[in-house]
């Protein structure tokens, strides 16, 4: 299952809408940074929806990893988001 790290840099006017969109699909990690597993079709619909929101000089980048196993996570300081499924 592909694992994604997504970052965006959009105009302040659209940042709220982008945040809400990404929260539906991925786990919030830090401001404008998300990660999580998505199926191919989930990724496509997220991509389409994000594309429709974007204007002017907005940018979104997805880093795709083949599986979560390939992620080595090194984190410094406070973890802001909750990534567990055991809440």
């Amino acid at each position, binding site marked *: *299952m592909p694992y994604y790290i997504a970052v965006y840099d959009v105009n302040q006017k659209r940042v709220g809408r982008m945040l*809400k969109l990404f*929260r*539906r*699909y*991925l*786990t*919030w990690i830090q401001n404008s940074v998300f990660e*999580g*597993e*998505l*199926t191919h079709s*989930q990724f496509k619909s997220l991509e389409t929806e994000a594309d429709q929101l974007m204007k002017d000089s907005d940018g979104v980048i997805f880093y795709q990893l083949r599986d979560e196993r390939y992620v080595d996570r090194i984190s410094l300081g406070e973890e802001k988001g*909750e990534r567990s*499924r*055991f*809440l």
Partner: protein
Amino acid sequence: MKRPYYLFSSGRLKRQHNTLALEKTSGERLPDDSPEDEGVPSSLPDGGRTQFPIESVDSLFLFGEIDINSKLITFLGQQGVPAFFFDYYGNYSATLYPRENLLSGRLRIQQAHHYLSPKRRLTLAKAFVEAALFNIERVIKYYQPRLEGDAQQETQATLQALVRDRGALPLTTDIFTLMAVEGRIRDRYYKLWPHFLGKEVASKFPMNKRERRPPSNELNALISFGNSLCYSTVVRQIYRTALDPTIAFLHEPGDRRFSLSLDIAEIFKPLLVDRAIFRLLKTGEINSKHFEKHLGGCYLSDAGRKIFVQHWDERLSKTVHHRALDKKVSYERLIRLECYKLIRHLSDPAGNTYQGLHMWW
């Protein structure tokens, strides 16, 4: 891939920005049947908010005291996410079942037809018991070579007794006798548990007798909790097929419960629940401090439940190689395949006689 989420905290679960948010509380929780309970939240949300992506949620397991509102119910319904509720003591209490979207009138009629005809019903009920028996034997045979002396002999004797029970299965002519045979099989099997657990563990956790409502000791508490998890997992898989969860064959299709999941769970309990219990006790992951006594019963503590559920989640995603499909299949997927086999039988009993899953690994 969508995966289950397990909420142990108390608080309010809500729909927020078209996704899910859990507002946690830090307050102490009252038993669900406590007379002081006025139906209002025990405490206000003050422990921070966690949002999680709806697209990644397969199902919700709610172990804490969670407030929900109708907006959330509508939202979960739209997203096809069932929520399973467990009471203060960890017993399965209810399912919030989204509107059926995979309906098949033809199949439902077949299912009812198979229930109404005593002969057809018995065929299916026997298949469930037979498969449960086979898997129980499989678990016993796994442990048998590791045993010594008396335990070895006792196990051998039980296996022989189980062969006789197997012989009795085709002769049963009604559901009641079948249930009696099934009860006998389980009794014999539970008697061997102290041997499987080993002397040290068995002395701490004696297995006297299977007792429910309330579970009388630690092992009974574990079995009850494991079985609740197993039922809800099966319900989730049935929901993904067109089967009607209320029409069962071995169990009476009672009201207010999904009897079919009880039937199918029979097959999976030895391989999922029982082995999980052995594993957790033998490794000491769960020990005496994870149990609490309440009102004459024994229950897993919150910490104990969390350990069990985490192990359960891992276990369900374990895979085995499936010979017929020639690919790896997770334990959870095996449950769904079982539903499909049942559907095939219901549609064409002559061509695809149902045979319950026999562990091959």
